[in-house]
Every structure is written in C-alpha cells, then in structure tokens.
C-alpha cells in the first residue's frame, strides 16, 4: 500500500512538473542592472564573490547554471547575473 502511495505521489510530482513545460525558459532580454543587484545580494550571502575576470565566459556559463540550482535562482535571474558578469568582464579585460 505504501509503495502504491509513493508511486502515485511520485507520478503526480513528475506530471505536475512536466505539465508546466508550457512556461519553459521564457527568454526575456537579460537585465544587467538586476543582475548586478542579485550578484551583490545573493552570491555574497554564501561566499566571497569571484571577480568577473577570474573565469572565462564559457566557465561563467557553467558556474551560473550550477548556482541556479544551489542558490535557487530563477532562469531569468541567472541570465541577468550572467549578463552583468560578462559586461563587467569585457570592461575589465579591456583595461
């Protein structure tokens, strides 16, 4: 009986998550101002922040997806922070 209940609950959980696929990855334009705010508030809460020039653009892509899961960021917030970091990195690299 417990196994049946668990299976039903698992199925409901999976189906409810998959049914929301209609909202998948809404791609609004990245907002680097919002990204800067989240970077200052959310990242520094847990750890010392890494300078944008510490990593390549490619490495930042991976790091941001990793932090999306760990810090509970939305997809849009993840893109905003990434946009802010890359813009800052471009400025720092040009110096």
């Amino acid at each position: 009986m417990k196994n049946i209940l668990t299976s039903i609950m698992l199925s409901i959980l999976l189906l409810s998550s998959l049914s929301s696929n209609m909202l998948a990855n809404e791609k609004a334009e990245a907002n680097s101002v919002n990204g800067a705010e989240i970077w200052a508030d959310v990242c520094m809460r847990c750890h010392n922040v890494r300078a944008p020039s510490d990593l390549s653009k490619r490495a930042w892509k991976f790091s941001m997806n990793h932090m999306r899961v760990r810090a509970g960021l939305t997809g849009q917030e993840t893109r905003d922070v990434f946009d802010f970091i890359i813009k800052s990195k471009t400025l720092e690299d040009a110096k």
Partner: protein
Amino acid sequence: MNKLGASIVLCTVMASLLLAAPEEDSDVKQLRKEVRELQQMMVELKKANKELEVNSDEYFEGENNDMPSNDFYDLKTSVKQIEAALEGNAKSGFQLAGYTSFDWVDAQGSDNEFTGVKFAPIFHYQYGDLFQFEGELEFKAQDDGETETELEYAAGTLFINDYMGLQMGKFLSPIGQYVQNLHPAWINKLPSDPVGFGHDGAAPTSNIGVALRGGLPKVADLRSNYAFFVSNAPSFGEADDGDIGIDASGKTTSGDVSKTWGGRFAINPMGGMEFGVSGAIGKASEELTATTNIGAAVGDKIDRDYDVFGADFMFNINGIDLKAEYVQQEIGENELSSLEGGTWRSWYGQISYQFSSIKLEPVIRYSDYHNPETERNQWALGLNYLFANNLIAKVAYEYNENEDSAGEASINNNRVLAQFAFGF
C-alpha cells in the same frame, strides 16, 4: 642687338612650349584614361566582394558546401573555432571545478600533526539551458596512508521552466544551508565544521532520489526559493565505532521502509538576507543486532519514525557576515529494538567581518550538538587572510567541551588549527 637676342630667346621658349604642349595633353589624357580604368576596376571589385560575402555566408550556413576552400574561408573558420573554444558557443560541454584544502592541527594532549589533505573535484556538464549534470568526488588522505574516496553528490537537473528544475540522483541534503552550500573549505570561514554538522552528526548530508527546486517569481518585491524531494530512507543503528546514530547519507536502498519526503522554503526579506525553514518526514530503517524477548531475530529489519526540522538564517551587509542554523533529526521508539530513540540536534551562530583594505577576516562561531549519548559545545575564534577571494589561509583556536550522557565532562580537547583552502 640686345632686342634681337631677347626676341630670339623668347621665340625659342614659345616654340618649345608650343611643341611641348601636345605632349603634356597626351599625358593627361593617358592619366584620365587610367583613372577611368581604375574606377571601373573598383566597381567590379566591389561587386565581386559583395558576391563573395553572400557566397561565404551561404557556405558557412551549409547551403553551399561545394565551394572550394581558400585562405579566406580557412581564416574565417579558424576564427569561428577559436571563438567557440574560448567562449563556449557550443550547446553542450563540460567543465572541471572544485576545491582543495590542507590542514594542520595542534590539539591539547597530543602532538601537532598535518591532519588533512582533501581534494574535491566537481565535474559539470550542461546541455544548453535545458540540462545540467554535476558530480563531486571527495578524496581524503587517511592516517594509515590510504585514500578515502566518496561520491559526495552526482545529480542531473532538467530545467523544466524558469522556475523549476527536476533534479535526479544523489544530491546534497536540502535541509538547512550549511551542508548544501557552506561546507566547501574555500567557503567555510573556519577550518572545521560546526559540531553536529559533519558526517554522522545531527544534520542530514545527502539523499538519493528526485527533487523539484528553483526560484519563484517575486511577490511584493520579495524573492523566494524552494526545494521539495523524495528519497530513500536513512538507516539507524550502531556504527563501527560503537556510537548509536542516524546515517542520513544517500543510499541506494530504503531498507524495506517507506521513502523520506521533505523540502525547504526560503525567503529574502531584504538584499543580502535569507531565512529558510526545512523539514522531512518518513521512516528510518534499522537492522536488529540483538535478539529480543518478543521474537525478533538478529538481522531482522524494522522501521522507526523519522522526522527532521531545520531553520537557517544568513545576512551579509558591508563586510559583516552573519550565519545561524538549527537542525534536528528525531528517531521514534520501536519495542522490537533494544536501541532507544531520541533527538539529534545541533545549532550554530557565526559572525565575521571582512576588512577589504587589508584582506583580513576575523571570525567567531559558537556551535552546540546534542544526541542521546553526548553533549558537545564549541567556541571557535579564527582569523583568515585572503590572498584572493578563493585562496584563503585560516588559523583558528577551538574551545571544546564534551559531556557524556551521565553529565560527566570528558577530555577537554582544545585545538589550534590552520588550513589553506583553494576553490577553483
């Protein structure tokens, strides 16, 4: 005579000018002709260049792959390849990250020792914005020279939409904050874990199962995030060292008992602040190690009620960093077992300040751990030097107090610790 001479010179000059004039005119004509030809060539070159650009675009879009390769195409291809390699234009790829630490400890009543070398590589793979896999291995040198290897976590996350990811595999416990986000050596502000937050303490470490997690849309300018999970059950019993405890690290079996259901919800009341509550409910599996009067045999598996509660708080402002967390796991009674249930609980509070100009960071932490057999508390004072934000040298002094269940203080093992930690 003078006039005659002057007239002859003038006439000669005039005549020579008149003779030379047609020659100059022909040069100008020639020059004009050449300019016209050059202009024509320019027009033709511009036209050819335009055609070339169109054709090269088609070539690189795969619509005209029969075009012969030449230096121009080779160059353009090389540029695109370099851009892809450097900037990660490819949809999928992987990256190696992680952290490492090196420890020295001088404890009262024993010799000082280089006690730990830990290397924890983290492998990241992602497919666009749709899927991510991350796995962390932990290698630790042991006192007998052997190397301990542990799979800390290995989980894939399918990003269903902007607000939800489906995580599958072995993941760090979403209960509280320390275990899932603060334990890496380059993030933890002291060389040791708070008491009760290490392996086999009061805080669950990992789960094997599935989880739904993500950030939620802002409500009244309030950010929030969540994680809900279902996983295999933990086990309860006597460990190899004789301690009675809960093994809440991810297992590939539930031991014939029902799954654990749990989650965490956190809000950010203001920038730099987070407050989270978490909990889980289910059963813990126990394998009997002694016969009882009511017919149960050694090796029989029974279940015990299992409840978890956690609350955590973090605030960072102007270099001041505050962290606090409480977590407890409770095991219910079962008359078939000779082991009593009870509560394993732990909490800590920590404050640190980062001087930006001199790269120093003093830290103070108090932590307390209670279980049915032991009571422990600890004050830790530390000072960190930041060579870089991810390259940190730490020294700390710990005041430790242990009491057994009879209320008698056991050895006072105050310690001096030093650690060099690096995140990459």
